[in-house]
């Protein structure tokens, strides 16, 4: 089968911003739900998970982009997984060395970054087809989008569930914690609420665009 040359994307601001807004891995593509729901019960966990995932995402995307002409199509997924697993091992040992407490809090979810679909999805859909510098910018944007999403869930859940941000108490002594928010159901509630908000914003924008183009057509 003849290979069609992939259109190479030219670097623009959109290459970076897509990952944060229109193609946000969590809020738009709903990828990588496992860590999103599991480790966002505090802001600190969310930041650590976001940064760890971003590191693996950027490094593995770069390596895959470099090797894109040498990886045979038939074994590409296996090759991607080996590359990703290498960087996950680095992150795993890194976090263990920096903070054992954090390592214990994140648990198996650090190792599970290997199977995070955001990373594999980027490798398959972007890094294996695009040049090095656009891959770097795009994966940085995706990582930032993922981290922002985790942070959005983590802050809401920590504020309601423990009455604090980054461990700093916000409301003083008598605060009533909403226990459910730091339990797994809380993750679903908060994710659902954020999705509701973003979908509402998106639909409203689409309706505005439709109305404006309708007005323009009528005027013309």
């Amino acid at each position: 089968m003849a290979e069609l040359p992939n259109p190479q994307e030219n670097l623009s601001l959109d290459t970076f911003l897509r990952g944060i807004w229109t193609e946000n891995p969590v809020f738009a593509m709903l990828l990588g739900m496992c860590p999103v729901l599991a480790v966002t019960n505090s802001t600190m966990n969310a930041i650590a998970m976001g940064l760890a995932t971003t590191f693996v995402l950027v490094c593995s995307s770069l390596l895959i982009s470099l090797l894109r002409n040498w990886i045979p199509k038939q074994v590409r997924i296996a090759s991607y997984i080996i590359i990703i697993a290498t960087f996950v091992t680095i992150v795993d040992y890194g976090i263990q060395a920096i903070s054992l407490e954090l390592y214990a809090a994140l648990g198996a979810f650090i190792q599970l970054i290997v199977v995070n679909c955001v990373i594999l999805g980027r490798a398959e859909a972007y890094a294996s087809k695009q040049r090095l510098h656009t891959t770097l910018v795009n994966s940085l944007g995706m990582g930032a989008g993922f981290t922002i999403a985790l942070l959005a869930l983590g802050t809401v859940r920590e504020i309601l569930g423990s009455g604090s941000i980054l461990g700093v108490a916000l409301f003083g002594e008598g605060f009533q914690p909403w226990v459910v928010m730091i339990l797994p159901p809380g993750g679903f509630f908060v994710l659902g609420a954020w999705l509701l908000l973003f979908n509402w914003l998106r639909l409203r924008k689409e309706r505005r665009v439709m109305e404006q183009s309708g007005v323009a057509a009528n005027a013309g």
Partner: protein
Amino acid sequence: MPKPIEIRTSPHLKRALSVDRIMRNVVFALLPICAFAVFQFGLSALLLILTTTGAAIATEWFFARASGRGNTVSDWSVVITGILLALTLPPGFPLWMAAVAAFVGVALGKALFGGLGYNVMNPALVGRAFVQAAFPVAITTWTPAFAPGRFTEVIPSTFTLPFMQPIPVSEWVAGLQLDAWTGATPLAMQKFQQIEPSVTDVFTGMIAGSAGETSALLILVCGLWLAFKRMLDWRIPVAVMAGAALTALPFWLLDSSLYPSPWFVLFSGGLMLGAWFMASDMVASPVTTSGVVIYGLFIGILTVVIRLFGGLVEGVMYAILLANAAGPLISSWTQPRVYGAVKKTRETE
């Protein structure tokens, strides 16, 4: 000129039985129970009922407006949700938590599914389940019934500032100087201390408990009135009660010192209120005649199983929510054969 003949399709006979009429009657049936709750627990119960109903109406109004469904508050269904929610909460429950429960119940349990007629589960119980998970201590803090001065002062935990922990009621209860107050409802006493309070007290409601669940007698009377007006399917409460009593009976016969009697199981806790007013929710229950019986029995059996063998003291709420979720499945299992249709057998295939 002869009178023109008007030809119409069926139905030819109509009764003025609309949604809001049924809902209004359910509210009327709930009013005596509310009155008894206020009589028993005083001002706090009244404020609780007003808060949940107000918050439920406000939430319904907001979501109906946001989704452009028009005015859905006037069908009265949301008033039922508000009142029922208050009746299932402890009388001294902080008002801000009650408002959260009402908001979550109507928003998550009803509005997001598309409003009345589309909700999978009973909205009042969705709200209660949320606060049970969020505030497990506050929702199991009981206060004594018939406290002196209950019409002039509120239970201290009622007026808790939003997002703050409720004020402990133990000092206030000690100040009341009651003879026999252990801080437990009859259900908890039976479960943890094997002390079974008198069935007469439990039946008439001379006990502590959630605001509106105490008097089995009153709930029975109000429920029967609705059933006779045909605004409630009598099969559901009967099946729930039968399921609960028949499950409890063998255990009681086996060891009556450890397990509660079927009478106690029927009249204690929220079983009566749940059976008559929550399991019978027209939207969330199955639609077929045999389906509602299975559904009711399921709730009854599950309630007793949770009460006797679960970690929780009361199981009515989760039993009904689970049965609500199973409702569509039960409906599809028990579809009656279409008139004239022939059952497919191996030979005809």
